[in-house]
């Protein structure tokens, strides 16, 4: 795409970087204050204040601006008009669409279901991902065996969501294999309708999502574990720290940045999980698994109310933005 200019850009940045005088002109500003709070190697001024970082960010800027910010802006625009897309003569209605969404009790039910679904998924993804990653990282077993296990453990990740949904519908159906084991082993008298029972449906789809999503955490943590210096463990061992203590005093703090980033991203992604829910329960039974994603989808493609659907999307966007804001602030203070 933009390779050649990128190269010249970066090369040219070097001489500028060594000349702090040229830096002032417009790039200093607000970040100076924050800068002072930073310690360590990042506080050094040598690379500060050049245009080079903007050069490095240009491809990202262009892509996100054209392909992400533009449609989002359009969606925000839709959210203030009436009967958009379906009706060619839509009118500006102010916050009416927002009022409609916020006045709908189902929307709040959807928000709370989404929070439960996403919260439980992220926690379970982390616990399982961490546990499996630690086991798979153990030096005690040989590399070949480890490779086999690693391949098995990432299996759920390799399937498209449509197949995950269909497969689990099959497994969890009243006459499916899960019920076969449950009844044969005497855990239940009757076959259980996992996905059709209003009290079981949300736990059931959360379980499916956990199954489908933990390998992402596992792989990232596995990579993160490679980066922890063995000296840290040796030092801990000299302090007579057992495996548990080593985990809490070395592994966890070292992985914390990765964990927080992934937890945030996983939370945001899980709140958007649509196909899995739609293809297993359709948001039902009744509204037991209604999520913001299914709620918005129905507004857009079932009642063709794109304006209200857009308003709902913007509300979700704002909620996530708050989350992202806290995350970035947290990162700042950590530095």
């Amino acid at each position, binding site marked *: 795409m933009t390779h050649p200019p990128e190269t010249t850009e970066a090369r040219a940045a070097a001489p500028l970087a060594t000349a702090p005088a040229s830096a002032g002109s*417009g790039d200093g500003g607000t970040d100076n204050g924050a800068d002072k709070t930073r310690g360590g190697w990042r506080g050094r001024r040598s690379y500060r204040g050049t245009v080079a*970082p903007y050069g490095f960010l240009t491809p990202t800027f262009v892509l996100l601006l054209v*392909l992400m910010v533009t449609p989002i802006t359009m969606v925000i625009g839709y959210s203030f008009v009436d009967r958009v897309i379906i009706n060619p003569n839509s009118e500006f209605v102010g916050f009416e669409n927002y009022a409609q969404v916020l006045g709908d009790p189902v929307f709040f039910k959807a928000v709370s279901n989404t929070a439960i679904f996403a919260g439980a998924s992220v926690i379970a993804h982390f616990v399982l991902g961490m546990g499996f990653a630690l086991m798979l990282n153990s030096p005690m*077993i040989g590399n070949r065996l480890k490779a086999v296990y690693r391949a098995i453990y990432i299996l759920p990740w390799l399937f498209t969501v449509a197949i995950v949904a269909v497969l689990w519908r099959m497994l969890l159906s009243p006459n499916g294999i899960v019920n076969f084991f449950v009844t044969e082993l005497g855990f239940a008298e009757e076959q259980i309708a996992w996905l059709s029972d209003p009290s079981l449906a949300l736990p059931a789809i959360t379980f499916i999502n956990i199954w489908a999503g933990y*390998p992402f955490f596992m792989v990232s943590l596995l990579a993160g574990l490679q980066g922890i210096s063995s000296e840290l463990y040796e030092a801990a061992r000299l302090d007579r720290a057992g495996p548990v203590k080593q985990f809490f005093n070395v592994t966890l703090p070292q992985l914390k*940045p990765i964990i927080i980033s992934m937890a945030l991203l996983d939370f945001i992604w899980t709140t958007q999980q649509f196909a899995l829910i739609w293809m297993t329960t359709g948001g039902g039974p009744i509204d037991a698994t209604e999520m913001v994603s299914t709620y918005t989808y129905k507004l857009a493609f079932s009642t063709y109310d794109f304006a209200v659907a857009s308003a709902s999307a913007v509300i*979700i966007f704002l909620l*996530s933005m708050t989350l992202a804001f806290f995350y970035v602030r947290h990162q700042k203070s950590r530095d």
Partner: protein
Amino acid sequence: MTATKTSLSAPTQLEVPTRAHVIRARKRKKIALIAALTVGALFPALPVVWMLSSSFKPNGLIFEYPPRLITEGFSFDAYVAILTDPEKLRFFFNSYFIAGSVTVLTLFVAVLAAYAFSRYDFKGKRIINVVVISVQAVPPITLLIPYFGLVVVLGLYNTYPGLILTYMVFTLPYAIIMMTGYFNTLPRELDEAVKVDGGSPWTALWRVLVPISVPGMVSVGVYTFMIAWNEYLFALTLTRTNDMRTVPIGIQLLMGQHAYDWNQMMAMSVLGCIPVLILFLFFQRYFIGGMTAGAVKA
């Protein structure tokens, strides 16, 4: 299960640890670990075993009760049907081509951006960060219509670049955040050393940081590949003809209005995952063994 039991019931007298004891204790631990890994592996593997089993069954027996792993009529017909259908093979080619391109391009663009975030302070960094993270929070389904319009206007409708750029937008934020994290763990002294030798930040990035970040890049790359590989909604909307479409759509085409072609659906996802698995087995060696970053870390 039984392995766990033996390891637990092994003798645990208090004795002065000898070399033999240490070895025995280590062996016990090893057996316990393998047992735990095996039991844990049932969680990901059992549903997949069932998928595999269904792909060999005739459609009429997939829902029989009580269920059986192998039924009469066991056959490879579903696989043959897929592998002899040029249209379906095209789906596989498209999926690999698109996911592969997305992975390479996303990594390239993300490495540049992560370098800026990790090594520079600049005006607007914070806002850009918030934007990069939160743009992913808009439900894609609501973006579908405006996005579709955009792609048509840009002339990318029903083209590979259309899908590749779309997936890059989806995967970039994560890739940038993760690569920034990996770069942040690498000491600044590395860059300094390059500069002392007269190199530019550009050389510092590609000659020093990137080579030792390979494990991080592999894990980001695997993620990127998976997103592009498994995406359905945009893959369908942004394409018009089946010669541009990917495996998830091929699978969905088997879910008919009135009935599903179960064994072919299952066979297609099994076939789809095998090459990815091989790729993963190849790359996973980067997860093993100490990586340089850990060694040089202060």
